[in-house]
């Protein structure tokens, strides 16, 4: 049995980021193999809510990546003529002459995000953030207390106001990863574990060693998400990706009562926080399938999968404060996931100068689904020697001091 394969690129990781890297790399003309020790979307992708958000990002490199990704998600999901650049529309039927996008398959919903502030002070801070975001190219709409109830009739009374972000959207993340992988046409090898990264005498990457033979390729993309540090270590480089645990609570299916992704203005501060202790800020959204998803908790407790009732209680308390009707709605399940977190909250994207031929596309924390398209697009550009659309300096994988490695 011959296990030697050759291709242009091996992507390690069949989650959302690996799928997007595969899609854009194949579109750029490369022959791609995606390898994962588990199934498709077996890691953080399968444990997330599928947020495509610009609203929770402060102006800076991550927001630029989010805006690029937002445009690319529209391109992937909408049905369109090749020369058609209109904004995406929602509909059940496919119009004449249109190429079907992946929108229906991945449950793409451009529903918009609504960030709410409970106090006038919080509203002032939120409005300042929105001003900066607007300057960076984000669509923002200021919403006063009365308009809040029009946008979300079931919101608690007494909130100070908020900001609407029409570009925020959602996909079902497991479906998104699976359908992007299928659409890419890349060869997908699930259930195959990468055990080493092969390096030539000159130090250049030559492929990967797996439990089922070697896969030879001049380029290897580390899209292993929360386990990205392990893959980096196989190549002899350090990348300090750490898990940041989060729980999601899922309710019984309901008629649509929560129309947008609704969250408290505290959420942005929590996302940017460095604290290892538990933080919960309410994030509530309806889904195409009916259940309401409730997040978001953040804790740095390693890969501890055990159920934490106090965290789930805190999530329920936050959600019922925002939407009192939820008190009588039943939680059906709760699940846990691990966000791949890097110390400065920015992902690692691009070539690793310490190991020529190794590219990183991991460490997106809780934003990986949304940032996947931009990341895949930029990785494909660097793989083919083109100038990336964004300056990758802030995402350099070797930006951390060696002692920061775990």
């Amino acid at each position, binding site marked *: 049995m011959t296990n030697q394969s050759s291709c242009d690129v091996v992507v390690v990781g*069949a989650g959302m980021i690996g799928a997007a890297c595969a899609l854009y790399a194949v579109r750029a003309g490369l022959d791609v193999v995606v390898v994962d020790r*588990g*199934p*498709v*979307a*077996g890691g953080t992708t*399968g444990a997330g809510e599928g947020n495509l958000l610009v609203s929770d990002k402060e102006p800076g490199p991550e927001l630029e990546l989010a805006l690029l990704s937002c445009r690319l998600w529209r391109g992937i999901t909408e049905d369109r003529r090749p020369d058609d650049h209109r904004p995406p529309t929602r509909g059940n039927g496919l119009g004449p002459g249109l190429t079907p996008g992946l929108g229906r398959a991945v449950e793409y919903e451009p529903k918009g995000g609504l960030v709410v502030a409970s106090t006038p002070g919080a509203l002032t801070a939120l409005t300042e953030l929105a001003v900066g975001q607007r300057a960076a190219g984000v669509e923002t709409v200021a919403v006063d207390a009365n308009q809040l109830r029009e946008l979300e009739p079931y919101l608690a009374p007494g909130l100070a106001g908020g900001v609407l972000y029409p570009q925020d959207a959602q996909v079902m993340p*497991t*479906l998104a990863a*699976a*359908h992007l*992988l*299928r659409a890419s046409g890349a060869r*997908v090898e*699930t*259930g195959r574990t990468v055990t080493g990264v092969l390096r030539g005498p000159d130090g250049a990457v030559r492929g990967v060693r797996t439990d089922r033979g070697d896969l030879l390729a001049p380029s290897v993309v580390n899209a292993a998400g929360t386990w990205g540090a392990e893959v980096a270590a196989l190549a002899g480089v350090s990348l300090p990706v750490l898990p940041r645990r989060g729980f999601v*609570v899922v*309710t*019984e*299916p309901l008629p649509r009562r929560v129309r947008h992704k609704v969250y408290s203005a505290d959420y942005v501060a929590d996302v940017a926080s460095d604290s290892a202790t538990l933080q919960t800020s309410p994030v509530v959204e309806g889904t195409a*399938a009916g*259940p309401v998803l*409730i997040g978001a908790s953040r804790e740095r407790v390693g890969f501890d999968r*055990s*159920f934490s*009732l106090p965290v*789930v*209680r805190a999530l*329920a*308390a936050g*959600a*019922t404060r925002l939407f009192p009707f*939820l*008190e*009588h*709605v*039943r*939680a*059906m*399940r*709760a*699940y846990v996931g691990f966000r791949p977190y890097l110390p400065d909250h920015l992902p690692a994207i691009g070539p690793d100068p310490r190991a020529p031929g190794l590219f990183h596309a991991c460490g997106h924390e809780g934003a990986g689904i949304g940032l996947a398209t931009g990341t895949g697009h930029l990785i494909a550009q660097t793989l083919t020697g083109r100038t990336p659309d964004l300056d990758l300096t802030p995402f350099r994988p070797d930006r951390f001091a060696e002692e920061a490695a775990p």
Partner: protein
Amino acid sequence: MTERRQVLAVIGAGPAGLAAALAAAARGVRVVLVDSAAEPGGQFYRQPAPGLGARRPQALHHQWRTWERLRDGLATHLAAGRVSCLSDHHVWCVERDSGRFAVHALLGPEQREPASVRADGVVLATGGYEKVWPFPGWTLPGVITAGGAQAMLKGGLTLPGRTVVVAGTGPLLLPVATGLAAAGARVAALVESADPTTLVRRSAHPRNAVRGARALAAHPGKLAEAGGYAAQLLWHRIPVLRRRAVVEAHGRDRLESVTVAVLGPDGRPVPGTAQRLDCDTLAVGHGLLPHTDLADGLGCRLDGAGVHVDDEQRTDVPGVWAAGEATGIGGAALSLAEGHIAGRSAAARLNGTAPDPRSWAPAARSRTRLRAFFAELDRAYAAPVRWAENVPDATVVCRCEEVTAGAVREAVGSLGAGDLRTVKLLTRAGMGWCQGRMCEPGVAGVAGCDLTPGRRPLARPVPLGVLAAPPPPDAGTSPCPGTSP
């Protein structure tokens, strides 16, 4: 050290839970017995609702004497205040809480009001639930589970229909068929996909002789029980169709008939053997699975489908014991033995002494014998290989989310799912009201992947308002509502 009496919460008042409660209460531990039903007894000793005025409930039960002993023992401990019994309590989570445990439940049929019990130790006697494989027509009204039919009979004293076909596989089908017939239903056939007579024949085979013969010979009672069912089947003129399966259920608005076919050695129907049977009810079951949600939520290690336990019935989480079907399917007698051992071990450990296994040697011996016997039984009633291939693409396999076999096959074939969790995420199979309890075996079979126990840290749907509020004060110390012996 305080002199406070140690509290043991026993979850589940079936044979295992009752045995554990009685054994622990007799040894100086305060027991809080928590159960979702209105009366203790579990599925096996399910009692008719008092309002029905049943004169001879024992007609529907075997081992009635054992039940009387359990019932009277419980009444004595209840009267003495050593046991309190919280019925209609649906436990949704057991939480480890600074060295003790908090058992969180919802009250009554509404399941909206919370109740919590604090305890120093927990016995999980959560029982099992039925496994049903899908087939065309299985979602028609009139198709019910075998256990469901039995529960209607024992608890409601009602017949699910006039003409019943009992089908599937496993030893549960025998009491269901004979019970229905005794209560006046016409049982058109007992359709068993396995051929349990191989249990005896297999034992005769030299390779299995020692193990099989020992397992059987150790259970003259079980053989007599089987013989008793055979006689009842004859008496009620119930045709027994072995190595056959219901391959389709028919009916416009509700069940009118079923098609039964002979299964070949590969588990597929043999062409030309199909036969229609008219019936208004199909009671179908393909064995049981352990309820492990609470154990898994506590972090207890699972061993295959059941909770892993040691010789004292301890799980690998200190202070948590498990007994009965939750540790692996083995019937009421094994549950009694395991529950007894768990109760004695828990009492000793909670009182700060090392238990003496010699004191429960008879129970340990019957546990060994019964586990061996049920391992043999499992082999005899093994699923026909490739049964899942018989399920057409159009058949709904997950009824809550209306996911078809075809959708599951697509998730595996072209979307890269290789395990039950990914199939669920891609198709929504198992995400509905039952959280996969009903459909997981069928979905796993159709997907061709292992049936791994689903993770359900919320063992029941819980109102967000209950989650958001602080837990209520300890209900275990309140006076007992009592039971009607």
